[in-house]
């Protein structure tokens, strides 16, 4: 399926290649560079590129392109999803996945790639299995290895997970403190139009877990209002039948960090929009324009809106902006014409405001549309959909774990048209 993989950095340097079948020369990447050259920004490169004999399927992540070469028909999503999974694995191993970490740990990277695919078909992908086969880098171990002259990075026995029917969990897990943390994160995707009415709003939720439990715990998580979740996707550990019949999340968790479930609450449901923007942006022929934006809280259920950031992509013919915020800082990038205003907390007694002048290039026509403002914010201790965990029970082990649930709502793709 996947023939070869090339990792390319922002400057167009192919700094890593791996072939699972016969070798394909890296000159194949020229087709990719050609497509990249046509795109105005890195995200615009088409994910699937057709060349005379090969097909290049690529993803762009953390300023790196991962280009997979395939020669025959294959479901493109299969390859895309797998490339993302490779990146996730690297992030899992090295905490981040960028050029310098990949170069630093190239041997492990290469071993992981070798283990993940066999003849281009996935072999061992589960993080828990991989981590037993190839140990993640660890400062202490590096020292002992250097001192003893032995290498303990590779395991000689097949992890039991690979053969068991719960491949995601390794056996023999032991912790002194048994903890289970659940983060319920909801992101609001919304488009707000000029007049402040909501064009569309959706909620996307995730339950991210950090589980540090010894042995083979069998957890079940129940919600107060599970009906809210009409469209869900699960980590393979979740017993689907149980959910379907009783709306209980019953699972034997993987060890460590993982995403238990994600859900989507569609545009048909009402979403409480927590912030509003009052804005006047106008351009005048010759002299430039005025910019005046105020942010305020709307339906926040009494919680503070934090980490508010506004991003305004100005049109290309804007020369500069001179603004004065009454709170926070702003910056303007004269190349990309991006104005970023880091507001911080919204204080309800004195609403954050930013105002000032826009200067246009002399002689250029005034832009015919106002920029679309991207808004970011975080509200902690609240899930906008109203979802609430009822209880968490553990079976199969005797100890009493420490349990914690955290709710966060934040902006996803939250855009205000002006």
């Amino acid at each position, binding site marked *: 399926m996947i023939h070869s993989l090339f990792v390319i950095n922002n400057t167009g340097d192919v700094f890593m*290649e791996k072939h699972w079948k016969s070798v394909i020369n890296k000159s194949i990447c020229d087709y990719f560079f050609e497509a990249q050259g046509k795109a105005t920004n890195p995200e615009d490169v088409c994910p699937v590129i057709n060349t005379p004999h090969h097909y290049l399927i690529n993803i762009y992540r953390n300023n790196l392109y991962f280009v997979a070469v395939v020669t025959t028909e294959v479901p493109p999503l299969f390859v*895309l999803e797998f490339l993302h999974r490779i990146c996730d694995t690297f992030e899992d191993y090295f905490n981040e996945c960028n050029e310098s970490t990949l170069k630093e740990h190239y041997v492990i990277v290469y071993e992981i790639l070798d283990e993940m695919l066999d003849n281009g078909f996935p072999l061992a992908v589960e993080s828990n299995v991989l981590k037993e086969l190839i140990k993640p880098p660890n400062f202490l171990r590096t020292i002992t290895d250097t001192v003893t002259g032995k290498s303990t990075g590779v395991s000689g026995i097949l992890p039991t997970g690979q053969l068991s029917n719960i491949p995601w969990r390794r056996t023999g897990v032991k912790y002194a403190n048994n903890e289970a943390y659940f983060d319920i994160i909801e992101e609001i995707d919304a488009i707000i139009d000029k007049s402040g009415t909501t064009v569309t709003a959706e909620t996307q939720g995730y339950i991210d877990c950090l589980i540090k439990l010894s042995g083979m715990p069998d957890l079940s998580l129940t919600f107060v209002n599970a009906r809210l979740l009409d469209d869900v996707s699960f980590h393979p550990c979740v017993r689907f039948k149980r959910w379907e019949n009783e709306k209980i999340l019953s699972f034997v968790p993987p060890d460590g960090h993982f995403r238990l479930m994600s859900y989507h609450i569609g545009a048909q449901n009402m979403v409480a929009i927590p912030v509003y923007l009052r804005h006047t942006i106008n351009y005048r022929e010759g002299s430039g324009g005025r910019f005046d934006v105020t942010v305020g809280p709307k339906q926040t259920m009494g919680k503070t809106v934090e980490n508010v950031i506004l991003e305004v992509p100005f049109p290309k013919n804007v020369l500069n902006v001179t603004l004065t915020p009454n709170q926070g800082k702003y910056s303007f990038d004269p190349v990309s014409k991006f104005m970023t205003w880091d507001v911080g907390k919204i204080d309800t007694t004195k609403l954050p405001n930013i105002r000032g002048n826009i200067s246009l290039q002399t002689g250029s026509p005034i832009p015919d549309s106002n920029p679309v403002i991207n808004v970011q914010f975080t509200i902690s201790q609240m899930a906008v959909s109203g979802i609430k965990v009822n209880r968490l029970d553990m079976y199969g082990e005797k100890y009493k774990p420490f349990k914690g649930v955290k709710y966060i709502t934040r902006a996803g793709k939250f855009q205000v048209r002006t």
Partner: protein
Amino acid sequence: MAGNGFQSSYANDKPPSSTGSGEAEMSTDPASSSFFTSDFKRHEDLKTMLDSNKDAQKLEAMKRIVGMVAKGKDASELFPAVVKNVVAKNLEIKKLVYVYLTRYAEEQQDLALLSISTFQRALRDPNQLIRASALRVLSSIRVSVITPIMMLAIKEAVMDMSPYVRKTAAHAIPKLYSLDPETKEQLIEVIERLLGDKTTLVAGSAIQAFEEVCPERIDLIHKNYRKLCNLLVDVEEWGQVVIINMLTRYCRTQFVNPNLDDMGEEEDKPFYEDSEKEDSEEEKEDDMKNKKAPYIMDPDHRLLLRQAKPLLNSRNAAVVMAVGQLYHHCAPKAETGVMSKALIRLLRSQKEIQYVVLSNVATMTSRRKGMFEPYLKSFYIRSSDPLHIKLLKLEILTNLATETNISTILREFQTYVTSPDKDFAAATIQAIGRSASSIAEVTDTCLNGLVHLMSNRDESVVAESVVVIKKLLQMRPSEHKDIIVHMAKMVDKITVPMARASILWLIGEYSERVPKIAPDVLRKMAKTFITEEDIVKLQILNLAAKLCITNPKQCKLLCQYVFNLAKYDQNYDIRDRSRFLRQLILPGENGSVLAKYAKKIFLSTKPAPVLASKFKDRDLYQLGTLSHLLNIKCHGYQELPEWPESAPDSSVRNVEVVMPWVEKPQHSQQKKKKESKSFYSESESSEEEESSNSSDDNDDSSDENSDSDAENSDSDKQSSKKQSSSEDSSSDSDSDSDSSDSSEEDSSDDSDKVIKKPAAKPEVKSKSKKVVETKPKSNADLLLDLDDSNFNISSVIIVGGVASNDTSTGATPAGNMLTPTLASGIIESKSYELLNRITGSGLSINYKFTRTVSVFSPKMVSIELMFTNSGDEPLTNIKLGEKKLQTGMEIQEFSEIGSIAPGMRSTVLIGINFNDTTQPAKFDICTAQQKHSVSISAPVGEIIQPYSLIDSEFTSQQGKLSGMNENSGKITLTKDNQDAKSICMCVHSVANVIQVPGSNENVYRFSGKTVASGTLVLISVTVNDSSAKLTVNCEKMVIGTMLLKDLKNYFESV
């Protein structure tokens, strides 16, 4: 060096300072940017490191070499030095050498052959990981000379005990095939075997091999179809994708079209005319038709759809898409709706995934818009989307437009038009045009909006709107005089050639509606003719010709002037055109014949252009494929076949008879004898499957027979094949449906793994099979007899025969071994009373330990409960009530028994995890009438399961479990009790253990493991004439003592 190295090479390339020759290495960093440091010297240094006898140095060298490989630098000249290290003991070195070998073996074929013998040896390693990686490397060495070796290795590996090795074998098949397509026939045989594999780990890879080698051999799937469907949920995600895609194709060849009635209509109807209303009417019609000739879906077809549906909730986008396309291509139209929600969810994933999903949705919406209409807002475009995603969303929004939602869509479009991204704005205008043409109600609004856009400052926007207006006007030319006037006025301002040309064409075509303006436009054009673009010039000629026909008085001279200008144009197209037009419009004296018809030729009404979706023709391709995405036929694309007119024979999918054992309780008693006889005549090996569907097992065991044959010798193989084929054909003939549900499949799978794991080291197989093989025919017959009656779990005991070392490991030849003692040693499992007929007021319950691995959990002891209704009232709703268990104990309930008629029996299976204690499990049995408290306690021998060991392992384990863990006692044996057979009998009656093969005649050894914790239990009986010494070794002292006591009591009572 460090700073430099960080930029251009990997940090780990830094040479180790411990090697002593630090300075030399500093200058010879293999991956450093300094190319001109002598290559020779650099590699020399690595070679010395590789030749050193210190692992640390070798490892360092290998790491640096892998660094070069990773960077794509040539390291081929190190091949001889590296290949020597293939025998390295250190695993990491070994791994890196493997990495290097697979990369360069192709280039250094001769040298690569040196390493082959190492792999061949590793293929027999007791460690499954080593076997698997040896196979992986061996098959990745693309040297054609070794294809026979690869073939042999693959054939062996597909019969490996470890599913992991079998998985790698499946991966190796396409490798071999690409190296040597001649091997196809042989490989198909191997694939056929792999397809029959029941473990979820192997399934995906087996299908992938099938798809790459012989996708046309759809007949191989028949037998495995139901199994694949049932396993689907438990296969790993990547396998699911491959399996679903393959099954989609299978589905198209084996079942009839579920949408047969409405298919034709849908095809004929132009998509842009269908509206909601028509749709619903049509559906009604469909319903009518359906009533006339009801379509009944094949149960197998239904099975696939049902099993695939939960996968829509997978976290893996590829799986969701695969299910989506399955439903799109194979499900009845009414059911396709289930996938839309899941596909919408995918739109929230990474942008690359969005792109692929959107292009598939675009195709779906061009056919069936109703499915995605409720999710219209999810396709609204954000300014931050990449351009290709914006265009796709636009396409979908246009496809989804109906009379009811068009106003909201148009409002949305309005904001897009002002986007600073001009390509996107232009695409939006086209989209507006398409919506306008498909929905008559809004055409006017759209036209007005577009006319308004013509005063836009941006040229490309204006041009695009002109072109779109032209197309729209062409469809409905009757009105809109003022628009044409307006456009005529704009000729001066617009500079984009395509737009100018469009305006000129419009004026020419509808000149009679603007009789005053048209000649004036021509006049202006004539003036600027020479500076125009070619495309505009051609339209000027057209306009001139048309005006000359309709209004010769004013235009003839102008026309002549234009033609003259064109005659001397640089472009030959224009010269030709002018010459040709002149002949028609301004004929000379001898007048052309055609000139009379000039008016008809030029001013006939032209058909309006059709504004259709770009994605309409894409549904030629299967959704979700690369071909579909690129809209070209990719290499290796498998055409999705059309539905067959009538379904091929469905009985080909029947495997064997499996009866749900609860449903026919009345048979249980009478059949048991017969069953046990046939079963034990061929004593199952420990790797045998548990028997919830025992007829299935029959097939299995015969399969395994042939496995072991093949390993032994080629001649054996022949005979065994004959056997299995006869088996196959005979089982074909009896047709009954496989009704085992997925849960059964799952658990059987579990147990499979569980039993196999311990046996991973040597391949243990039942010696007694040899006996069976000598008369395969009769055996097959016997097995067949069972088919309709095998529902009873209780009688299959995992009685391992005498295990022997596999011949392939080269240990003791099988001939010297003790003859099997168990062939006749059937242990009738004891039945205990749980509830007395009198206390249970009519209901009596007996239980027995089945000694199989529990289908519910490997930690549970499997117990069969037999309910007998000895009263005269039917007993109803029998179920398990409250459980009073000790901590750590678990009980798996049975599903409620509806009712038992008087005099009837019903058998169910429960699982109890006794947590390795002999404490009773207390629980209630409830009937509709009453509640009975009962308790089951397991004798210590029953909480043990067989675990096969070889002689030497037994001794070493026994050595470890001495002292406190050892319990021994003396027993006296009666005369007829001293032979091997009866001793085995006795031990097996007490404990569920397996005999360990050994050469010492007076020592009998048995081994097992406790069910819950897997603690080893070893029993040995040393016979000394009339007395014997019993020794039990077990880490859990309580179990050891109790077992010894039980054994002693039993021996004395016999």
